[in-house]
């Protein structure tokens, strides 16, 4: 069989430190979208609980156990990250492999919140958007999934086709926040 070279969405873009934020592509996790069939929500949550130790997430919720993570991903949709879809789920939900379909970027540092606040029209204050909270929202004109992974850290996911635009938006906003911070 031919061995093809895997290429990440940002094609080897190295991490950058701009002012007080570090931007970096997050690569390589297995991603599966889970969309529950009608009327079996409770059964699906039970099956997920057995397989992963967490149920189906509520809107805005991120559930995690060990490496496996499940992020609320839209209306009646969740994204299972870094775990193999259990076969018991197949009768309860539509499961689609999304690995390589998304570009993921982390923004970590004291300025992360300020940088994203320039781009996303949601309240990103720690009080309103705590660790483990997620939202689907615009970032500029890009539809993203935004998750707070630490008090000073976010993970942003956009369609792979939007990777270059996403990187452009966040680096440009980071430059502006850094320029303002450097003012006397």
């Amino acid at each position, binding site marked *: 069989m031919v061995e093809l070279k895997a290429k990440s969405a940002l094609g080897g873009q190295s991490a950058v430190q701009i002012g007080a934020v570090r931007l970096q592509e997050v690569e390589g996790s297995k991603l599966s979208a889970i969309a529950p069939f009608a009327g079996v929500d409770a059964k699906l949550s039970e099956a997920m609980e057995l397989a992963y130790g967490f149920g189906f997430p509520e*809107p*805005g919720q991120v559930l995690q156990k060990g490496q496996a993570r499940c992020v609320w991903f*839209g*209306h*009646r*949709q969740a994204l299972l990250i870094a775990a193999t879809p259990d076969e018991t789920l197949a009768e309860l939900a539509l499961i689609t492999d999304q690995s390589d379909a998304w570009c993921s970027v982390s923004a970590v540092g004291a300025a992360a919140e300020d940088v994203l606040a320039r781009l996303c*029209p*949601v309240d990103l204050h720690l009080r309103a958007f705590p660790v483990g909270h997620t*939202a*689907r*929202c*615009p970032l500029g004109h890009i*539809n993203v999934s935004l998750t707070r992974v630490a008090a000073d850290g976010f993970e942003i996911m956009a369609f792979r086709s939007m990777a270059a635009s996403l990187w452009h938006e966040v680096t440009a906003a980071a430059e502006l926040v850094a320029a303002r911070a450097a003012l006397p």
Partner: protein
Amino acid sequence: MRLTCPNCGERDIREFTYQGAASMLDRPDPEAGPEAWHAYLHLRDNPAGVTRDLWHHGCGCGAWLVVTRDTVTHAVHAVELVEARDAG
């Protein structure tokens, strides 16, 4: 204008797309006859006051919503999932 999506909370109008009157959800019986189908497809109220329409939260959770709002005062009275209405 801001809409409070049942999934996402209060969000700016730019995240939503307007589709039209919520009466589109009340599809007549296939045998209801030409009058009912004509009304369903072509006739719309244009109220000065409370109206109900369909919005799509495309740059958010992707849900279809029924928005009850007032065309005179611009007050938004309710935002509900179409799905919740189907279930009820």
